[in-house]
């Protein structure tokens, strides 16, 4: 299944805002560490991944956390996973 990039981006935004409603993607630097940009602690981050799984069906294993450290990296990772499935 291939998902358009805009749909993936919207799913990420919705997932993050479900946990951190004030998250402002307009001012977020997509190349900086996502969790620090958005003040997400380990609980928040796990909850974001659970939201993402609900929206996109992609479950990100802990071993891949290093590959999803920034918004750009997360979007690329999700696109690749959705393409592969």
């Amino acid at each position, binding site marked *: 299944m291939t998902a358009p990039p805009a749909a993936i981006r919207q799913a990420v935004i919705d997932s993050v805002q479900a946990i*951190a409603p*004030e998250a402002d993607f*307009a001012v977020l630097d997509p190349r900086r560490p996502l*969790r620090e940009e958005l*003040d997400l602690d380990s*609980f928040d981050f*796990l909850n974001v991944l*659970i939201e993402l799984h609900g929206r996109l069906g992609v479950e*990100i294993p802990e071993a891949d956390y290093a590959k999803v450290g920034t918004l750009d990296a997360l979007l690329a990772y999700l696109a690749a996973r959705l393409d592969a499935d």
Partner: protein
Amino acid sequence: MIEFRMPSLGADMEDGVFVEWRVETGARVERGQVVCVVETQKGAIEVEIWDAGTIARLIAEPGQRIPVGQAMAIVAEEGEDRQAVAAAGVAAPPAPPAAPAAPPSPTATPAAAGATVVSTPPVARPAVAAGLPPRASPAARRRAAELDVDLDALAIATAGAPISVADVERAAAAPPAPVSPRAAPAAAPSGPVATPAAGPGPEEAMRAAIAAAMSRSKREIPHYYLGSEIDVEAAHQWLERYNAARPLAGRVLFAALALRAVALALHEVPDLNGQFADGRFRRSNAIHVGVVTSLRGGGVVVPAVHDADRLALPELMASLRDVLARARSGRLRSSDLADSTITVTNLGDLGVETVYGVIYPPQVALVGLGRVLARPVVRDGAIVAARTMTATLSGDHRVTDGLTGARFLSALRERLALPEAS
């Protein structure tokens, strides 16, 4: 007859503002059921009842400021006649002010029935006043500081919706309102009783609560501080194997593993677990760990994970997740805040490397867990990279000495070296 009273949610709480009932007269209530919402300095709290029965009479009304210990409702026990109990009224108000000379009739208005209830005008604030600080991103917060925009006022204007940088900039460009909404009630006649209706906003109230508790701590508690770097590589590797086989929702975070290790280490050093009251320390058999939780938008609350030493790791994770979710969403319950026996701070992993915390009275110890990072350690004479964290202990010198604290940190190190046992 049972009196359902305003609970004490911390040593410094004197009263709370009643927000709403979640039950009606005549309703059957179970032990542990949420029956009302009260606004405190720690935000809006859902208050549970600890006796089963039937609601005979609701006394408290929205907007009333009610002292700790004063009856908010009368509950009929099993086998009692609800009408008779309701008519009997408040027999002996626990709060000092005089009771009404005659028993109040069942038709009396609640405010008149409870003479000690200080009536305040309903607090005319929108949903945001439910005790949470304004929800604003770090960027919006910075911009607000730069432009001197009052986030509290803006939160009220936006009815509690998340505040973005654009909102802040719009607010800065707009002409200042003649009177801030929160200050407005002060101008209105407030009746015979001077009331705090124009009291501080939620963020200021929480600041004041933290200030009161921390000032008391530093005034009364002679702190000693210890710190120790602990190798948590084995614990992390064990947890990664544990999580690899589990779905997202079943994953356990290191925070939960560390919390359990703290609770189990306290078994070996019980003099750090309990409360200091009336000039002496009372050790607690139960281990209720207060978890310092930063709120988005500022302030902290310290809800408890109850019986942390008795929960298996998945249960502890679930309990921690529930309580953090309630804290973050501003829906803490009275039992979450009532009875911690020790506090752990900085489970948030974006934090600093070392934290020496201030003890929350009436507790006598606080454990600080620093950021986990890969650092050089010496193993078998060779330098290798391993994940470590600095654990600290702040202790009350009236109750224990450094030796006790050192024993605790040593026990914690042993627990984390054997994660499968913790």
